[in-house]
């Protein structure tokens, strides 16, 4: 008897995850090994012979910390370059999280580099380390290397969350660009005083390769490729519609948009070329899968930036970078799907559901809003759920002061629990999307069930 439904090819999420996890682990190993390689190459090029006296050991350690610090900074650039392979392996979010976590260690290594060398030279000449600053500045290229260190301090300090809140995003971003200058300023002394590019050494090959990869991938994936893509797809704003008070959908027209290869749940970085908005780019998820001629995002007026883009006129030219992110079907690890989304966080879920391949009965969705007005795109989501055979719960009401804290008060009083809504949670990939404070509570509740961390996919939506 012929089947009435076209069967979906069975996807073994476990196997695809194992493959991805291998790539992710390899990436982590490469990252750390590159730091070790920086030190090892120095040791191999005569550095190992230097561990003779306390002063020489200090000096050698100083050189090693400088090399590892530089290596980490270049690795940070690689992680921030939005290389597609890295995005597919660990996702842009985690790449940036690793990038961020390397920032302080890299700075400490560079500071230790300076301090250890001053101490080492100080020990060897019998003067105090401070007195060594003068002679050191007299070496070629050292003054700008000191300036580079200063810039690096500025970049890391402004990137620390506390300061970042006092800064505008734009200001922070501008300071962040100084890191390129800091790296550029540090380079000459590495060549002249450090001699890392000495002819015919493995060190030379290694550092040239690393600099090329770092700056090359930044150039290619952050500038050249987005520029070409933007020019090719000729995206313009085709309409702005109000979804709810303060929430707008921006519709785009363009050429051949399907070939962007976006998955539902991924985001693009959008830049609107009007006089008031061109200098600020916005990372925003698709709220529907692109057709070949149109795409859509949905934004809430949270910051000044997003308020401005909801007022852009029709016809505005738009440039894009992306698609980025692993909050998509590609991150699946388990046979079932559990989705919990709140507020504006439903938008990537909307596109995710449209794009993801799952069998009827495989997915369960819980949509969450504080008030009726915040039920953005819920009708669309319910339509998709019905069409693809997913169970869709909704939960409206302010957060409960008792219980896990992320559900509505009335549902908590009713006795609703995570386990009640998602009986198969242990065998599910859990996709969470919503405001940070709320999402932290959900994630805590989910983690309490002791499901493996790799089954949890969270996207925090703060702007």
């Amino acid at each position: 008897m012929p089947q009435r439904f076209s069967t979906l090819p069975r996807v073994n999420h476990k196997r695809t995850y194992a493959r991805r996890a291998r790539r992710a682990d390899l990436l982590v190993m490469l990252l750390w090994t590159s730091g070790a390689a920086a030190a090892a190459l120095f040791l191999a090029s005569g550095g190992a012979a230097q561990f003779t006296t306390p002063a020489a050991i200090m000096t050698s350690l100083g050189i090693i910390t400088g090399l590892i610090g530089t290596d980490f900074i270049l690795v940070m650039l690689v992680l921030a370059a939005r290389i597609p392979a890295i995005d597919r392996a660990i996702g842009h979010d985690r790449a940036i999280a690793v990038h961020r976590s390397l920032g302080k260690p890299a700075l400490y290594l560079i500071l230790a580099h300076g301090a250890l060398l001053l101490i080492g030279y100080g020990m060897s000449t019998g003067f105090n380390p401070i007195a060594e600053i003068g002679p050191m500045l007299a070496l070629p290229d050292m003054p700008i290397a000191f300036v580079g260190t200063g810039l690096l301090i500025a970049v890391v300090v402004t990137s620390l969350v506390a300061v970042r809140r006092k800064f505008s995003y734009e200001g922070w971003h501008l300071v962040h660009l100084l890191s390129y200058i800091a790296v550029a300023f540090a380079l000459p002394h590495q060549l002249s005083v450090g001699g890392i590019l000495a002819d015919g050494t493995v060190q030379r090959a290694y550092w040239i390769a690393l600099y090329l990869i770092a700056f090359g991938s930044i150039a290619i994936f952050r500038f050249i490729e987005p520029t070409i893509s933007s020019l090719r797809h000729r995206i313009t704003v085709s309409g702005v519609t109000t979804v709810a008070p303060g929430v707008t959908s921006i519709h785009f027209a363009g050429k051949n948009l399907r070939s962007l290869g976006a998955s539902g749940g991924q985001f693009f970085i959008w830049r609107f070329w009007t006089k008031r908005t061109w200098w600020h780019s916005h990372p925003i998820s698709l709220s529907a899968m692109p057709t070949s001629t149109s795409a859509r995002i949905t934004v809430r007026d949270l910051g000044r930036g997003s308020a401005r883009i909801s007022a852009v006129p029709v016809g505005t030219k738009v440039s894009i970078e992306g698609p980025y992110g692993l909050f998509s079907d590609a991150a699946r690890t388990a046979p079932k799907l559990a989705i919990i989304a709140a507020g504006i966080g439903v938008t990537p879920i909307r596109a995710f559901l449209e794009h993801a391949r799952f069998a009827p009965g495989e997915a369960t969705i819980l949509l969450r809003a504080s008030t009726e007005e915040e039920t953005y795109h819920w009708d669309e989501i319910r339509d998709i759920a019905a069409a693809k055979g997913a169970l869709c719960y909704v939960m409206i009401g302010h957060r409960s002061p008792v219980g896990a804290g992320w559900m509505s008060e009335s549902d908590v009083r009713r006795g609703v629990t995570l386990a009640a809504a998602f009986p198969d949670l242990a065998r599910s990939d859990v996709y969470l999307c919503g405001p940070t404070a709320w999402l932290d509570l959900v994630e805590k509740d989910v983690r309490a069930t002791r499901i493996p961390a790799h089954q949890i996919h969270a996207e925090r939506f703060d702007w």
Partner: protein
Amino acid sequence: MRHVFETMGTVASIELPTGWGPALVMPVFAAIDERFSLYRPDSELSRIADGRASLTTSSDTMRASYARAVDWRALTGGLFSPHRPDGVLDLNGIVKAEAIEQAGVLLDATGCPTWSINVGGDILVSGGPWPTGVVDPSDPTALLCSVLLGDPRRALATSGSAQRGDHIWLGGSRALAEFVQVSVAANDIVTADVLATAIIAGGRDALDDITDRWDVDVFAVDRSGALAATPGFRRALVGA
């Protein structure tokens, strides 16, 4: 590119090809300076010199340098000595040359194709030829002549009583030196340095003896300002 830094109470000028840095060799000087300087009261040599430590239990590096200096004392008939006339151990005469030698070995080991190391007027080069001036002992701001250094004559050491005669003791006597400045070009810097010191200490006889027994080129300036040079040194003169 030229790199200049202070070490061992003097100044090192190192010329390296573009892309090479002095960071590798700076610790060589720093380490030797730390161990051997007598003007630093806590150096190993200072502690041996004033009896706080014993040479027999000292570091391998210290004893290797001492043994080398003693070998040279035998070879030069006592004109070069690891001891000052007052008996204090002073390896200054050999450790600077050893430091230059080690820095050179290190640069060669890392494949640096061409370089010159000048520490306080003692010079070791690789590649070349490197035109090298010899200072006029009567006028430190003028050159007396220039010679070409390069393989195999890679080292030029100059000893004198003009500027800093304090580490040359005249064979135990306090007689005035016959020569005010002696430059020795040799295939290695330790030989050049030791023999220049020995000729200053031993005068004309030592000059003849040493040029006879060693494969070196010598250029000497005596107290009256008269010059003497071996044929090899004449051939190495720039423009000769």
